[in-house]
């Protein structure tokens, strides 16, 4: 019988409001270097909307040492536009690969790629469509423009942008920058994308479809997402996320992304790589009730967590830390707290529970992976960062949150996520003792 492959993480490349690159990012977490700024969306000098979010500082794609010609090729395809969340993906892959010390310069590097994002390209597409429709209609009656002319005009103008909203093109762009020719995927399971992406990468490695896989997720807080979330009543008007709190009033977006390099333990040991953790396994459940509301009272999230423990072949008592989704919105926090306490008991002393969105904001499609990066650095450094803004925990939720950074010998940690559309997920990571 073939020996079961162990999958490990050997590179982390985060880009977030607290810092860019693993060292600055972790220091930013420990120093609570939270950066929340106000974004104004101005149309013809008039403010459409303004909102606060966790914003990345001083990001410049040209400073990451990425092949300039390949970046220019992407810019040509995008007709001169800089697509910031695509740039986050590229930069995060670069940081993760550099951190792993894998060589990707040759075309036979054997590396695969899994990208995750929720709405890549939505904002530039939406703005272009809106601008053209405005230009074509302003000062005219609808009947002045034949429908055929209008439809053809839109098609000609937005052919490429329209295809760019489909994610294969950006998978192509990022893969090409890093000479990736092996099995690659683009994944969108809403906020849980990062955990689905890790599992997909694990399967790619176990099936020998690549010798290493870069998993990268990012998101950008654009105006369309903000308006949607505001209208759903889940965007914090004061720009502060308060997970599981009686004072919570919603989530706040966070800019950035993160790359994570995965490979087999055998491969990592052979090349003397630093190992952050072993990826033990994950569990998933698709609730399938509503897109934007969890089904209070269902057992879907509990099943995902139990499945993660089963796949990881680990007892729940061995889990040292759980990092929940923790978005700071009453019903979703309640749903999540119920699942966690059903599994681990009310107000558990172990595992410690700490939610990381107050540091980096809600990175949507990138959130689960970005917070996993914090968790992996916590595991490596034996420090559990506190949950910020959690003075007034809702007693109905029965969760204790870590209120001050804790030094604790950590062995096994879990990331959980309950996403839109009911994508519930949990993943388990274990320190590798050499």
């Amino acid at each position, binding site marked *: 019988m073939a020996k079961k492959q162990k999958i490990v993480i050997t590179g982390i490349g985060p880009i977030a409001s607290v810092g860019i690159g693993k060292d600055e990012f972790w220091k930013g977490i420990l120093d609570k270097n939270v950066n929340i700024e106000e974004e104004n969306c101005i149309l013809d000098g008039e403010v459409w909307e303004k909102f606060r979010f966790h914003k990345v500082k001083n990001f410049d794609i040209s400073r990451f040492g990425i092949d300039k010609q390949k970046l220019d090729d992407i810019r040509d395809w995008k007709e001169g536009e800089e697509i910031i969340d695509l740039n986050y993906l590229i930069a995060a892959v670069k940081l993760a690969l550099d951190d792993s010390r894998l060589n990707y310069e040759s075309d036979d590097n054997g590396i695969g790629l899994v990208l995750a994002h929720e709405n890549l390209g939505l904002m530039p597409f939406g703005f272009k469509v809106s601008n053209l429709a405005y230009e074509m209609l302003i000062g005219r009656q609808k009947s002045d423009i034949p429908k055929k002319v209008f439809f053809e005009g839109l098609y000609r103008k937005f052919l490429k942008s329209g295809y760019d909203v489909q994610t294969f093109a950006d998978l192509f762009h990022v893969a090409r920058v890093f000479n990736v020719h092996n099995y690659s995927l683009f994944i969108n399971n809403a906020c849980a994308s990062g955990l689905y992406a890790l599992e997909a990468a694990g399967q790619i490695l176990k099936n020998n479809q690549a010798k290493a896989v870069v998993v990268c997720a990012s998101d950008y807080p654009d105006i369309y997402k903000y308006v949607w979330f505001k209208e*759903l*009543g889940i965007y914090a008007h004061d720009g502060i996320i308060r997970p599981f709190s009686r004072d919570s009033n919603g989530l706040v977006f966070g800019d950035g992304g993160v790359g994570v390099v995965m490979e087999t333990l055998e491969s990592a040991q052979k090349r003397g790589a630093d190992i952050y953790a072993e990826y033990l396994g994950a569990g998933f459940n698709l609730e399938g009730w*509503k*897109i*934007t*509301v*969890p*089904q*209070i*009272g269902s057992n879907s999230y509990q099943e995902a967590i139990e499945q993660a423990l089963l796949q990881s072949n680990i007892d729940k008592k061995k889990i040292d830390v759980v990092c929940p989704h923790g978005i700071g919105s*009453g*019903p979703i926090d*309640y749903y999540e707290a119920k699942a966690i306490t059903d599994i681990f008991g009310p107000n558990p002393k172990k595992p410690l529970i700490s939610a990381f969105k107050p540091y980096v904001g809600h990175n949507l499609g990138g959130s689960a992976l970005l917070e996993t990066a914090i968790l992996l650095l916590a595991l490596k450094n034996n420090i559990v960062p506190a949950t910020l803004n959690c003075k007034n925990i809702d007693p109905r939720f029965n969760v204790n949150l870590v209120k001050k950074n804790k030094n604790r010998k950590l062995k096994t940690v879990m990331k959980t996520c309950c996403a839109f559309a009911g994508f519930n997920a949990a993943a388990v990571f274990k320190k590798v003792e050499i």
Partner: protein
Amino acid sequence: MPEDLLANLEQDMKELIAKVSGRDVEELKPDAHFWEDLGIDSIKAIEITVAIEKKYKIRVKDEQIPEITTVAKAIEVVREALQNK
């Protein structure tokens, strides 16, 4: 049959809401506001939606859930769904 359900809708809905929320049926006046008058928060409102869908075998749309803020509104949502069945 929807007709039978519609005939007793108001009373049945009050009983459903009372059961899920723990309030007395008598308190559930049509215009009573879930949160301000009855202390029924957004978590309970979702539980009420789950119970409504199960009892009447209808589908409440995502965007209707935040609108269910009074007893009358809850009844209106169910009536509309039953009539469109």
